C-alpha cells in the first residue's frame, strides 16, 4: 500500500491510495464519519433567554458547534468510571453570558479547559437586540457521529476508483467526445486528443458512448482510489485520518479479545 498526497491543508485532504482493498478504504471512510469521538455540547442549563430564539433552538445551535478535541485527557461517558453521570474525566463545563445589542458568537463561550475551545470562533449563535440577554451553562462531552451528527468529525469523506483514460491509436480526432465530457478534461492539442486532468474524471463513460470507433476507453483502476475528506475543525485532516485508522484497530482488537474468550 502506498499513499500519494495531492492536497493537504488543516481541514481538507485529497490523496491517492494504491494497492488497497475497497473494504478497507470503505471501513476508513465509515470510521471517520461515525466512529471517531469528538467534543460537542451535550447538556445545557439555560438561566436566562429573552432572545428571538426558543431555548431548544439555542441548545441545538450551541450543540452543533465543533470543539477542538483532546482524546488523551477525556474518555467517552459510556466508558468512564462515573458510568456517564459526568465527572472531570468525561465532561468540560462552559459558560456563556451576553447582553444585547450584540451578536453572540461561538468565541464568546468560556471553556473551563483551555484545550477544549470552539474550532471556529465566528459562528453566530443568536443576535440579541436591546435589553435581550442570554445566560447559559453547558457541558461538552465526547461522542461519536453514530449517535448524533454534532459529533461527526469527518465531512464529505468519499472515494472513487482511480480513473484511467486510454486513447487508442485508431482515434481519428473527430472531437465528438470533447463536447460530451461534463468535466471538460478532454482537449484537442495539435489535432491530437489529449487528457488534461485524468483525476477529475468521474467515470461517466459519456465519451466512450460518443465515440463511433471505440477509440477511447475509460476504466477505474480496481485497487487504487482517490480519497477526499474534510474535517469540521475538531481535528486536523491528518489527525482525523489517523484517528479513523486507530478506531478500526481498537475495534479489531476488541473483537479479537472477545473471540479468544469464547475459545
Amino acid at each position, binding site marked *: 500500500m502506498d499513499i500519494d498526497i495531492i492536497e493537504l491543508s488543516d481541514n481538507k485532504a485529497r490523496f491517492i491510495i494504491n494497492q488497497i482493498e475497497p473494504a478497507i478504504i470503505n471501513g476508513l471512510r465509515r470510521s471517520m464519519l461515525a466512529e471517531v469521538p469528538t467534543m460537542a455540547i451535550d447538556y445545557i442549563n439555560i438561566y436566562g433567554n429573552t432572545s428571538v430564539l426558543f431555548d431548544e433552538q439555542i441548545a441545538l445551535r450551541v450543540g452543533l458547534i465543533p470543539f477542538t478535541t483532546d482524546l488523551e485527557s477525556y474518555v467517552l461517558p459510556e466508558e468512564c468510571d462515573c458510568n456517564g453521570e459526568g465527572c472531570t474525566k468525561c465532561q468540560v463545563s462552559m459558560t456563556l453570558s451576553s447582553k444585547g445589542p450584540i451578536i453572540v458568537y461561538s468565541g464568546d463561550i468560556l471553556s473551563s479547559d483551555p484545550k477544549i475551545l470552539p474550532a*471556529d470562533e465566528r459562528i*453566530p*449563535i443568536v*443576535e440579541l*437586540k436591546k435589553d435581550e440577554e442570554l445566560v447559559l451553562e453547558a457541558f461538552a462531552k465526547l461522542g461519536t457521529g453514530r449517535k448524533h451528527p454534532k459529533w461527526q468529525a469527518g*465531512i*464529505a469523506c468519499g472515494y472513487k476508483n482511480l480513473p484511467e483514460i486510454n486513447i487508442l491509436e485508431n482515434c481519428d480526432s473527430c472531437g465528438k467526445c470533447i463536447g460530451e465530457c461534463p468535466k471538460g478534461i478532454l482537449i484537442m492539442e495539435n489535432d491530437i486528443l489529449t487528457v488534461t486532468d485524468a483525476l477529475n474524471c468521474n467515470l461517466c463513460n459519456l465519451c466512450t458512448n460518443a465515440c463511433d470507433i471505440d477509440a477511447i476507453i475509460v476504466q477505474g483502476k480496481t485497487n487504487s482510489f482517490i480519497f477526499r475528506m*474534510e474535517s*469540521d*475543525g475538531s481535528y486536523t485532516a491528518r489527525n482525523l485520518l489517523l484517528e479513523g485508522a486507530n478506531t478500526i484497530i481498537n475495534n479489531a482488537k476488541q473483537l479479537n479479545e472477545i473471540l479468544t474468550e469464547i475459545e
Partner: protein
Amino acid sequence: MIPIRCFTCGSIISSKWEEYSKRVAEHEDPGVVLDDLEVERYCCRRMLLSHIPLVDTFAPYQ
C-alpha cells in the same frame, strides 16, 4: 439565524454568512462570493444562497 452546519454534509457554513451577505448586498455575484469563500459543494451553497434572516422581523414582537 443562519443554520450552523450544512443540512446535508455537516460542513460549518454559518461563519461564512456575514461576509457573504455583506458582499452580496454590495451587488457582487453570489456565485463568485461562494467560490471565494471556498464553499464548493452545492449542498452548502444552497444553505447560504437560499437563507432569509428573520431576526429583525421577529424582534419587535418579543
